[in-house]
């Protein structure tokens, strides 16, 4: 059974489309990275999984349970580190973890959990006095309470120093070894790269790519970009280039044609340009994983 099964999910906030026809399956035991720039719809997807937000169309299931009709059983098996969670209460860190354990109806030692996230020493301090990083660690502790089968981490490294980020990664890896499914959202590529089996890239509510890190690397290696500066862009050239096999994107910057394509298609693209007008300069480059992410997400990060 899939841990997360999202089918044809759409969400409209007034006139703003946050998600459009999202299809996504995350298998049990998988560490899935959910990438995308801010505002791409990552948090909306997570909010729908937790029933904070109701979809306009489509459905989502967690461990086969409908996220709307069976939200409580879903959340009993899910540990969540939400994004932008607002001020915490005035209780101590210890009491907060206890509260999470109680809600999950789980036995567990709050102290051991706090130790695991590295704030055991602050257990009896009120959380309103915690630093941002300590709060984030506490949130992770609350997410881990009750040994969830699914961990949902929304931008988990926000506010963490490098040590904290490293501890977060180690915990994600340890959880993955225990066959916990991890759904990890981030706008920072390298964090996802370090821990995830597979990543999905979301942009403006659309899922633009789903692949393993290696698969993405291959795609990145095989594709490149070619920039052809011309005196002017002749009519019909864009269409001609677009129709070429291996061309994935065509954009115009001033009078420069920017074409994303497989390396093998570069020659044909250049000859198309020579055939149609005056070429002033040609630049070609291979894409890195970073470029790939940028090209998928329109370069606005």
């Amino acid at each position, binding site marked *: 059974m899939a841990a997360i099964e999202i089918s044809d999910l759409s969400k409209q*906030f007034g006139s703003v489309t946050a998600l459009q026809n999202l299809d996504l399956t995350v298998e049990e035991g998988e560490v899935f990275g959910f990438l995308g720039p801010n505002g791409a719809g990552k948090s909306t997807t997570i*909010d729908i999984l*937790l*029933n*904070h*937000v*109701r979809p306009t169309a489509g459905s989502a299931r967690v461990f086969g349970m409908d996220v709307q009709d069976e*939200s*409580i*059983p879903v*959340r*009993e098996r*899910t540990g*969540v580190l*939400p994004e*932008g*969670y*607002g*001020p*915490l*209460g*005035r*209780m101590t860190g210890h*009491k907060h973890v206890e*509260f*999470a354990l*109680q*809600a*999950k109806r789980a036995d567990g030692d709050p102290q051991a959990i706090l130790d695991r996230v590295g704030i055991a020493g602050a257990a009896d301090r*009120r959380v309103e006095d915690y630093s941002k990083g300590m709060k984030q660690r506490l*949130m992770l502790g*609350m997410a881990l309470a009750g040994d969830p089968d699914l961990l949902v981490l929304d931008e988990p490294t926000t506010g963490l120093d490098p040590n904290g980020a490293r501890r977060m990664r180690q915990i994600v890896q340890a959880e993955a070894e225990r066959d916990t499914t991890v759904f990890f959202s981030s706008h920072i590529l390298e964090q996802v790269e370090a821990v995830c089996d597979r990543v999905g890239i979301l942009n403006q509510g659309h899922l633009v790519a789903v692949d393993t890190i290696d698969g993405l690397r291959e795609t990145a290696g095989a594709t490149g970009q070619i920039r052809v500066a011309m005196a002017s862009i002749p009519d019909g050239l864009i269409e001609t280039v677009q129709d070429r096999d291996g061309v994935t994107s065509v954009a115009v910057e001033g009078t420069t044609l920017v074409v994303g394509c497989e390396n093998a298609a570069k020659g044909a693209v250049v000859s198309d340009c020579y055939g149609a007008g005056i070429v002033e300069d040609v630049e070609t480059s291979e894409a890195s994983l970073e470029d790939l992410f940028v090209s998928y997400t329109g370069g606005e990060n």
Partner: protein
Amino acid sequence: MSWIAVARKDFRDAIRSRMFWALAIVFGLLSIGIGGAYGYFTDELAASVPASEAGIGLVFFVQSPITIFIMFISAIICHKSIVGEWEQGSLKLLLSLPHTRSDVILGKIVGRAGVIAVPAIGSLVLGLGLGAALLGGSVLTSVDFLAVAAGFLVAILVYIALYVSIFVGISAITRSSSLAVAGSVALIVLQFFWSVIIALVTLLLDLSGDPDWLYIPQTIMPNAAFNELLNASLSAMTEWPLSANAGDIDAVYASPWTAAVILLLWIVVPVAIGYWRFKNADL
């Protein structure tokens, strides 16, 4: 049953705030001040009436300012209970755990009612005790007084539940803190001017001789319904004649039961609308 956990957290968070201690102290001073003043200034008068009557006089002297104070305090403590946490994002945290939205609303009502009830009951016991002691030895031990005082404390708990439920309901209905403030203030203002409004309308419509059905609008606001019910209940417990609106009206509906139904509707309806809005809302 996870509303209990939500209520406990809400209560624990609240009693760790300075606001709570300020509330408890003001409550205590107010109650002791009013009760003490009554006992101190009317002890000679009280000596001339039966102890039970003097004690009941004390209860009614304390009732009016204390209930108004509770109404304001409930508004202050409850109007942001849902919408404020919604705006700040704290609700996402609460609802990421396996709590339902009804758990959250019920937990907030019970938690905040506790926050008000604990200092209220404590203060009233002190204030009524002091007042009764000052009135004279036999008042404090008069069975009638003790029964009325106990009945009054129960009534105060109902009153707290009433207003906490109303203001948490308003908080769940509205989609911004400022609207919640506006709604809460509007209700309080309407309470104060209700009898004036009724008088004006009666005048405008030229309703001579106060028709019987006027009992309904006169009793429809929460404070009016509460007072009507309190007076009727305490009258039934003692020989003390209490004026109730229903007193000299023959109509079937002019009874404390009507007031009880109105009170129940005030406890249930705003929060039911709030729950319905909140249940369907995107956080």
